[in-house]
């Protein structure tokens, strides 16, 4: 018994390990996390899959064995208890009961016994009477069937564990151990996967995933086993007609559903079904669940827009490109891996933090009225985005995430292109300003002028001529201005505002730096204005006007251009159109242990309820000649309610005995 309690505690503690350490991750993650030394050690102890490890299963086996042993050991005693009445109990032992009382009765023993028998029957007690010399013993009991709760509850534990074992698929584990089946790597073509990693449809127990793009069909499930995979053949093929995502008005997903066609591979019959979250479909003993979804190879129409330093960028008209999610393409020296597409992105519209309000105001707002308050954050769909990895000739990859539609931030419209070097970082977004027509073209045209050293001279000269028209100043002043402007542009084209700032720090005394910075900004804005005029001319648009918005646009353009010089690629991909193909990930499960497990669960519930709330009671009435009546009570479970019941019975019986019962309470009740 002590062993049982320790076992329960040990299993509880052992279970903690697997909740602290993420289980069944790719082994590479563990290697990165723990390093060369600990990784193999932890592997030996099975810490990456604790609940499937030998030692944990051994603990569970101990539980099953110990519980079964306990059942076997206790059963004879309990059976005896359930059958027997203990009608041979001796007076001496009755007097040792915690609950007993001696009453007086009037009349004869023969007169009292039928009355007592009736009392016991009325209160639901079954009894045997035992005649002795000078006394009759009523040995009564009620609810002794409640002892069955013990069998139910503990038998249930065994049933559940055995059911779980059946789903653990020991035969397969054995075949893997013997090398009859060998796990293989996931990243290879299905046709290349050898027979030793394939399981037939007769495999009794498995859980695997089917990845099915819309319009395609699949009859193989991928089982993740340790650090590799196995392929499970299904007796039917699943083709995905459509994958549906419904949304709430907030844009949050409301429903995921796969409209599938099941085709039995033996009979050739087909059935249309819908698999939904919380609504699985079962066929031929295999249940299909909506597990997740993915992109199934969306076609992306892309425009290659130059960005970054001019020196790295091919000049000329923008290129176009077609990409397919999940596949790769090329541009210049780069390999482009198209990694994802999302048709819908729901983001907070105004991310103004609500916490800034004073506490009292927040309280008044949040604890009054309905569960939907005025400060409910507004969310909106900002449209599609897609992601890709750019791999240069040295194999280095960077990840990009670009939105298709412009986003309004601080009163302007921008296109966003995000980049990160490391998958654990968030994307950093570069904002590219749109012109008054809502197009990126002006930015692109200005960029080729402002960042191209070959154009600097002509922009600077035009700018100088416009700022200081001939006749107002001498030629030399104008030339000096043009020279300064050109140098400023060159400086800017290197590292943007950074290089301008560094230049000022190196060459201007600190007292005058602010003033100098202003001059530089004025020069840059002047040149940018010139570039804007040229860009408009080149794009065949009317000359720009000097509205306040134009000034803001120029500043936004300069900032974006300065930032873009740190963009780690010479181009970005603008999404101009797409043809979405979704994929559904279904989970296929065959779980023969499910029935015993749930049967065990039912038994467990009933058993626990009976054990905890069953009322097994024994009442002994020893009627002795000479007007003495001994009442004693016991139960398998002691409780305060038992004492109360005893008190009730003593009073009731005393009344029948018509004795001088004084109600002062039973002896030794405090020991209960």
């Amino acid at each position, binding site marked *: 018994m002590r062993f049982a309690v320790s076992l329960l505690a040990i299993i509880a503690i052992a279970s903690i390990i697997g909740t602290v350490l993420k289980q069944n991750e790719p082994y590479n993650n563990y290697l990165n996390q723990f390093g060369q030394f600990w990784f193999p050690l932890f592997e030996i102890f099975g810490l990456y899959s604790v609940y499937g490890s030998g030692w944990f299963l051994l603990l569970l086996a101990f539980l099953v064995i110990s519980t079964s042993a306990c059942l076997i050991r206790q059963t004879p005693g309990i059976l005896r208890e359930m059958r027997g009445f203990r009608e041979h109990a001796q007076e001496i032992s009755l007097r040792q009961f915690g609950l007993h009382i001696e009453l007086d009765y009037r009349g004869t023993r023969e007169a009292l016994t039928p009355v007592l028998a009736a009392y016991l029957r009325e209160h639901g007690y079954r009894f045997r009477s035992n005649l002795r010399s000078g006394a009759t013993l009523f040995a009564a009991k009620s609810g002794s069937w409640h002892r069955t709760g013990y069998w139910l509850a503990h038998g249930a534990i065994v049933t559940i564990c055995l059911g779980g074992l059946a789903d653990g698929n020991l035969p397969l584990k054995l075949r893997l151990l013997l090398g009859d089946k060998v796990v293989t790597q996931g990243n290879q073509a299905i046709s290349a996967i050898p027979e030793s990693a394939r399981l037939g449809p007769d495999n009794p127990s498995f859980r695997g995933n089917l990845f099915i793009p819309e319009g395609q069909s699949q009859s193989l499930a991928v089982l993740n086993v340790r650090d590799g995979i196995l392929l499970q053949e299904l007796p039917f093929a699943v083709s995905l007609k459509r994958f549906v995502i419904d949304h709430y008005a907030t844009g949050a997903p409301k429903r995921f559903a796969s409209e599938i066609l099941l085709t039995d591979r033996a009979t050739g019959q087909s059935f249309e079904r819908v698999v939904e979250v919380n609504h699985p479909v079962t066929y031929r003993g295999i249940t299909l669940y909506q597990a997740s979804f993915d992109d199934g190879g969306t076609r992306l129409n892309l425009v290659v827009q130059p960005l970054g330093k001019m020196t790295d960028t091919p000049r000329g008209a923008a290129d176009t490109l077609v990409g397919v999610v999940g596949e790769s393409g090329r541009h210049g020296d780069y390999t482009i891996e198209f990694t994802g597409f999302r048709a819908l992105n729901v983001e907070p519209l105004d991310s103004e933090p609500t916490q800034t309000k004073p506490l009292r105001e927040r309280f008044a707002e949040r604890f009054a009225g309905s569960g939907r308050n005025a400060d409910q954050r507004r969310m909106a769909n900002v449209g599609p985005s897609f992601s890709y990895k750019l791999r240069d000739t040295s194999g280095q990859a960077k990840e990009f995430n670009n939105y298709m539609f412009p986003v309004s931030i601080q009163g302007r419209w921008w296109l966003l292109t995000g980049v990160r070097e490391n998958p654990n970082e968030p994307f950093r977004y570069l904002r590219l300003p749109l012109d008054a027509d809502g197009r990126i073209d002006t930015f692109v045209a200005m960029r080729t002028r402002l960042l191209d050293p070959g154009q600097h001279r002509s922009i600077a000269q035009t700018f100088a001529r416009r700022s200081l028209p001939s006749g107002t100043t001498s030629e030399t002043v104008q030339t000096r201005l043009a020279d300064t402007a050109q140098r400023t542009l060159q400086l800017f084209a290197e590292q943007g505002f950074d290089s301008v700032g560094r230049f000022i720090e190196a060459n201007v005394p600190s007292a005058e730096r602010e003033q100098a910075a202003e001059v530089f900004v004025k020069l840059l804005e002047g040149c940018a204005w010139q570039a804007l005029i040229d860009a408009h001319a080149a794009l065949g648009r009317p000359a720009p006007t000097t509205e306040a918005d134009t000034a803001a646009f120029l500043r936004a353009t300069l900032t974006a251009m300065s930032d873009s010089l740190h963009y780690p690629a010479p181009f970005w991909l603008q999404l101009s159109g797409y043809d979405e193909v979704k994929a559904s990930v279904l989970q296929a499960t065959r*779980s023969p242990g499910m029935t015993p497990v749930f049967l065990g669960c039912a038994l467990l519930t009933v058993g626990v309820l009976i054990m905890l709330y069953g009322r097994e009671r024994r009442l002994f009435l020893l009627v002795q000649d000479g007007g003495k009546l001994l009442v004693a009570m016991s139960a398998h479970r002691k409780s*305060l309610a038992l004492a109360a019941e005893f008190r009730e019975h003593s009073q009731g019986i005393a009344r029948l005995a018509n004795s001088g019962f004084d109600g002062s309470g039973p002896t030794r009740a405090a020991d209960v």
Partner: protein
Amino acid sequence: MDIADTPINPDSRSRLASPGRWAYALVLAFGTIVTLVRYGEHMDGFELAILVGTTLTLAALGWHWLASAALTLVSGALALLAIDLYRGDLARAEQVFALKYLLASQSAIGWMSMLFLMATAAYWIGLLARSPFASAVGRGLTWAASALGTAGLLARWHESYLIAPDYGHIPISNLYEVFVLFCLITALLHLYYEGRYPSRNLGAFTLLVISAAVGFLMWYALERGAHEIQPLIPALQSYWMKIHVPANFVGYGAFALAAMVAVALLLAGRGVLAPRLPSVQVLDELMYRAIAIGFAFFTLATILGALWAAEAWGTYWQWDPKETWALIVWLNYAAWLHLRLTRGLRGSVLAWWALGGLLVTSFAFLGVNMFLSGLHSYGSL
């Protein structure tokens, strides 16, 4: 203890003759029929079963514990009044006085929170100043808080449908909502045992854990805006939620209650406040009763969780951190029960164990959501 203190169950025959009980059953039946007539066509078989099951449960509970019937009737009436005042327009929460300051869900939950805090204070005054009046006030405030909290949750249920029909769901779907549920269930368990056992002044302890939950609730709403009604993610759209979650919280509430009784037991065992607290035997029995009911419901809840998991995730058990911690909690109390029942252990060891059990339970309830990741991520902080 004096045997005269022990509760004596009223004779069941006298209950059959009680007109109040029959009237209550009739009201429940009427309410259920109205619901069926009005909304029956939108319910599937499971929901019908849950509705009827709820009615039967409430009737049985009211039969056994008449005060619960009063609570059902009062909170039901308040919720119906709220629904009537709404007239299908959520904006009226800000316009109608009774809604804005009492009956709309957040108002009612705000009241519930305040009343629970006041009840805690009253119980403590009752304990320290030996004032039965203050304790009675504490009990009254706890009842009032429970009524408003229940009405608040019911109103919130209605409000979710007013935001948009497809938003509608029972308000036990996120951490904020289940915290309200936790407060209510713990309070009701406390009130039940207070009525059944000579458990004077125990409220000072049991209400502490409710106050802590109220504190969390307020912080969660004020700092995180968690009080907002959010639509259900697909994984939660299941009738299983309606039974799995409440069953779990009866378990959590009972374990929390047992731990608070354990605190009182440890104090009384050392003579601290002993004359003002129930006897050690009563405390010991109460602790056992609480753990027993908690264990029964927690067993049921875990099994319901497994049934749900089988339907939503494709396996009844996959060692997800929340599942695993539920198992740990369960094993812990199984061990507790074995120690008491098979080894006959009593008193302070079991009390410390029950207190430790609360830590384990809290971790399963909150810690998993805060520190570990897994499929139950919708409850994250």
